[in-house]
């Protein structure tokens, strides 16, 4: 067992631990927003650990080559880019389809944003005809 194998195995172990944390958050958390919050981040970090760890681990074995590391880095970067996008789209769909927040939640920034936007639009609409009437 050389240094590359040991480093890869440690990375895979860390990634497996974060996979476990993500599954645990999926079970434990009270509503869909908290579940998404805990599980997506730790699953992304766990994928990075496992996938790049496999690439480094394969470099240390006798069948491994540099192509292993290249392909695993491609998969890891793809997952790193697409996981937040899918999480964002899912949670926006959850909010738009009217799923209520957990009763212990203390802040709803998205609703404040929507209300402020609607108020600004209303003000702009009420100002325009008055100006037109004055002219």
């Amino acid at each position, binding site marked *: 067992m050389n240094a590359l194998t040991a480093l890869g195995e440690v990375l895979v172990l860390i990634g497996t631990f974060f996979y*476990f944390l993500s599954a645990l958050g999926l079970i434990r958390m009270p509503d869909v927003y908290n579940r998404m919050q805990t*599980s997506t981040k730790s699953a992304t970090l766990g994928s990075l650990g496992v996938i790049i760890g496999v690439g480094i681990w394969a470099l240390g074995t006798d069948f491994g080559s540099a192509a292993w590391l290249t392909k695993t880095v491609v998969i890891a970067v793809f997952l790193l880019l697409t996981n937040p996008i899918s999480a964002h789209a899912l949670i926006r*769909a959850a909010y738009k389809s009217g799923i209520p927040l957990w009763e212990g939640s203390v802040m709803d920034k998205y609703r404040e944003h929507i209300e402020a936007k609607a108020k600004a639009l209303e003000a702009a609409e009420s100002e325009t005809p008055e100006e037109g009437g004055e002219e």
Partner: protein
Amino acid sequence: MIGINVYLALIAIATLLSMYRVFRGPTTVDRLVAVDIMTTITAGLMVLFALYYERMIFLDVALVYAILAFGGVIAFARYMEGGL
């Protein structure tokens, strides 16, 4: 150092734990979130399988699986929003 069999078993157990939310989840988006996490974990499991069987072609399978899962989740999210 523990060995690759133990890692495979642990990741499979994590997948099964997230299956709990797929069956239990009160709303549809709960199930979608659980399926999203499950596909992410399964992509990592496939990469580990490539090392286990010493075949590099399994890495391509994992990449295509990740791409298809991403497309499916985006399509379902658009459908839930009512935009599809």
